[in-house]
């Protein structure tokens, strides 16, 4: 045990490890807040679709050797989020089909583009690290850490200010609209923030595993808690703890960061299911 603490203390002396822990925790916090709404609105798959779009955008950014690829990936993903929300009920291609199309499409194009234009010798290694997370969480610059902190504060403030309206729109969109709440604006707002979080979270867990960060905390919390505020708070706690635990374990056992965090989430979900059954929810 003391060995483990020693090892952790040793790693903590490196600034890049500290940065990784800070950024990882903040991303986990943001994604869990939105996760509750996304899961309840049956939008979980939007997160999944958007993460694939982000992968495609990243591939394109790599070819053009953009110095700061976030500046390219972010607008593309946000644009995709807006498009996905626009596909309402009265369009020719239904929402879920549109998302499936967009996500597989961009995944394929991303891989294709990487294969054709890549100058790197290890293509499959590159692809694998973008999809499942890589060491990029350990190569964060100070600037990226600041960006993440600012983003988190913005998301937190917006979420608290609009909490009551987000609740109303999530629970009953039509009633909210009938009482004069601009539900479409809030849907758009939710989609845009989701897109932003996904792009940030790509560094942490890779684009295939992002949805886990969004969905798992909310689902775990919903097993046990029966009021909305409680679910939001509990899922934020679960998410932050799992992310921290996952990152620690991955440092100690040198396992891949993203997959470890998701594994922790799965364990916590199972635990919450059992607790839920025991207390009869």
């Amino acid at each position, binding site marked *: 045990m003391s060995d483990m603490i020693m090892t952790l203390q040793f790693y903590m002396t490196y600034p890049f490890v500290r940065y990784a822990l800070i950024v990882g925790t903040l991303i986990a916090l943001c994604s869990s807040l939105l996760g509750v709404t996304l899961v309840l609105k049956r939008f979980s798959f939007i997160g999944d679709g958007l993460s694939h779009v982000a992968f495609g955008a990243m591939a394109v950014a790599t070819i053009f050797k953009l110095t700061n690829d976030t500046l390219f990936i972010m607008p593309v993903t946000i644009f995709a989020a807006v498009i996905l929300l626009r596909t309402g009920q009265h369009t020719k291609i239904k929402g879920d089909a549109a998302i499936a199309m967009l996500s597989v499409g961009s995944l394929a194009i991303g891989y294709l583009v990487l294969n054709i234009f890549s100058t790197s010798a290890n293509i499959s290694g590159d692809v694998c690290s973008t999809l499942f997370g890589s060491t990029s969480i350990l190569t964060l610059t100070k600037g990226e850490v600041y960006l993440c902190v600012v983003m988190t504060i913005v998301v937190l403030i917006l979420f*608290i200010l609009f909490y009551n309206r987000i609740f109303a729109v*999530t*629970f*009953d969109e039509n*009633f909210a609209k009938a*009482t004069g709440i601009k539900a479409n604006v809030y849907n758009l707002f939710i989609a845009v923030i989701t897109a932003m979080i996904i792009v940030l979270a790509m560094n942490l867990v890779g684009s295939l595993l992002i949805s886990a960060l969004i969905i798992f905390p909310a689902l775990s919390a919903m097993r046990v808690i029966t*009021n909305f505020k409680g679910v939001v708070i509990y899922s934020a706690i679960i998410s932050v703890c799992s992310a921290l635990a996952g990152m620690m374990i991955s440092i100690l056992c040198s396992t891949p960061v993203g997959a470890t965090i998701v594994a922790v989430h799965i364990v916590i979900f199972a635990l919450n299911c059992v607790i839920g059954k025991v207390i009869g929810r």
Partner: protein
Amino acid sequence: MAYITCKNLELGYEGMTVADNISFEIKKGDYLCVVGENGAGKSTLIKTVLQLIPPLSGSLITGDGLQPYEIGYLPQQTVIQRDFPATVWEIVLSGTLAKCGKRPFYGKKEKQLADEMIAKMGITYLKKSCYRNLSGGQQQRVLLARALCATSKLILLDEPVTGLDPKAAASFYQVIRELNEEGITIIMVSHDIQSVISDASHILHIDKTKSFYGTKESYLASKAWKSFQVMIEDDTNV
């Protein structure tokens, strides 16, 4: 002046007409029951009255001090709501949101109003309960309390007794009747015309081309009612 006056309304989505030639008006204290076959345009009419979608043609005028957003709406249950983790208190309170204006949080006044409406619906003992664990009848009372938080003038109910057992349905109708007697205007969309007809003051029978609007008495003497009767008898024979 009536709360809502509709003249030659044409309903539909994106150029597709669902129902045409609908004219009616709702005054303070009326109890309007909207009937019609499936697909006749009842849900479209609701969305139009709530101003969620614009009418294709014709006019819809609100008056007598009714603001467009002062209609309390009791929608049909959605899949989302069935397993939603929220307490009765959170849901009813969300009905007062329109009264908050630009303020981000609920004030004392809103909370008091929500408390009153919960008491009025007789569900104070459920205040802290989770919505998804309630019975169908209790859930409808919660949604009604929320609608009453949004308005004290006009309530629009969309198939409110669907899925309720007869006893719960009867007590729900009783609640609606009492609200109407207090002076709250009711618009109810229902399949269950037999139970509603005794309470309603006016009937709107929607049909693709020829809709009927009038008092209950004139409706009972009309052709639309007779055709409806035949339909109901057919249903019961099957």
